[in-house]
């Protein structure tokens, strides 16, 4: 009963959307984290991407390097690059989004018009600089040196923050997915900045105890960057707060009018 997009995209992209926004989940999570997002943000159709190794793709091996992920994801969404598009990622999702944007920037299809990254240090920082042990008050901060129990505690906090309670029986599964992602993050760091060939909008969160807005400024090494600082907790991104939707919508309008003046006045 599988349709072609089934494994990588939660739903068949619309044939009438003006533009698309491909959205990548954070470590340990799957495309369902975007379930509270609207179907569209301005002209952009929201298209959550499902990486291998989670949710309905739980038994597929996860990516072992970011470039490998970028290539596989690019191949999967290639049929849907027939109109202008942007890529969004939160936390580790920002690194997935970056690797996808780098790959797509190589062509032959048109490159993304915009990359939006939320609560994530720049991809070219070495893992020792990117990742810290959780500070008091930080939620959803993981480190490979943490024990299975400690990872479980963090995952449960994230679940609570999202209004749910993680069932005991899910913990082993959740930790397994997360361990895979942590390995990916720690074993596959680019040595130098890889530009994405499009503008970058960074989103930092005022109550983010882990990633301060200062740390996000060095995304500028990946492309012309516009920083944004939003009020609240980084986990709020999953609820699609109006402030975040406005950043995405306005960044998109700005980049489209800059890159193709003719199109904007059409």
């Amino acid at each position: 009963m599988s349709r072609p997009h089934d494994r990588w995209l939660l739903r068949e992209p619309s044939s009438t959307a003006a533009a698309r926004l491909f959205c990548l989940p954070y470590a340990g999570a799957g495309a369902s984290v975007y379930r509270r997002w609207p179907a569209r943000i301005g002209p952009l159709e929201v298209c959550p991407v499902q990486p291998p190794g989670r949710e309905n793709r739980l038994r597929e091996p996860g990516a072992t390097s970011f470039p490998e992920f970028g290539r596989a994801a690019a191949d999967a969404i290639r049929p849907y690059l027939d109109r202008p598009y942007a890529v969004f990622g939160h936390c580790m999702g920002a690194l997935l989004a970056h690797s996808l944007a780098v790959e797509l920037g190589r062509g032959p299809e048109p490159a993304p018009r915009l990359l939006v990254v939320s609560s994530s240090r720049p991809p070219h920082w070495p893992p020792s600089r990117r990742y810290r042990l959780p500070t008091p008050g930080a939620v959803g901060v993981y480190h490979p040196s943490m024990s299975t129990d400690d990872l479980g505690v963090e995952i449960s906090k994230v679940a609570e923050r999202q209004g749910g309670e993680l069932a005991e029986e899910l913990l082993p599964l959740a930790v397994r997915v997360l361990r895979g992602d942590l390995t990916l993050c720690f074993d596959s760091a680019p040595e130098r900045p890889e530009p994405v060939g499009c503008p970058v909008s960074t989103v930092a969160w005022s109550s983010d105890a882990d990633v301060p807005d200062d740390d996000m400024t060095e995304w500028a090494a990946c492309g012309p960057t516009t920083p944004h600082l939003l009020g609240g907790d980084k986990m709020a991104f999953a609820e699609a707060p109006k402030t975040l939707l406005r950043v995405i919508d306005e960044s998109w309008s700005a980049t489209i009018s800059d890159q193709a003046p003719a199109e904007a006045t059409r």
Partner: protein
Amino acid sequence: MRPDRERHPTTTLLERAVRGHPGVTDAVAELVDEQGSSLTFVYLSTHDDLTSRRIRSWLHVEHPGRPVPDEIHVVPEIPRHGDCPDWSALRRVRDDAARLRAPYVAADTDTERYLVELWEDMLELDRVGAGDDFFSLGGHSMLAVRIRRAIQRDRGVVVPAELLFINSVLADQARAVDEVGSPAGAEPISS
């Protein structure tokens, strides 16, 4: 061309009925001819946490015997041009919802019918079909656990959550439940 479908007696009645719900702030209805059959769609906004499923059961109770809409869509706000509903924007709402669904295939087996009802309850959706995908419909891991527990309670079958994840299409999930439930078919939990 924009036919005056909002003035059709059926849609007027539906609008009035739905607006009678205390949680509804605004509602419009349209009648559309699609492939030879007339379908009614209701769009509503709410200041409450109303779902299409709740409105539908409320309509059944409050207006028994009246025609019910084929689809009910809850939107943050009814898009309008002045006083007139923006039908093309509403059509996009309908298309977006439709793309979450596989082409409708009715449940065929006992387990499929059971899962349809369970999913509809858990996801607060109507008309779940055998080809629908749990994650596309808005499902997530914590909901999968509630489904697992319900299956254990109602059917006496212990299905590992992992099996529910990877069999995210309803018909596949029904088959997995049947296999685990049959004496020889239990799949070991891998970790």
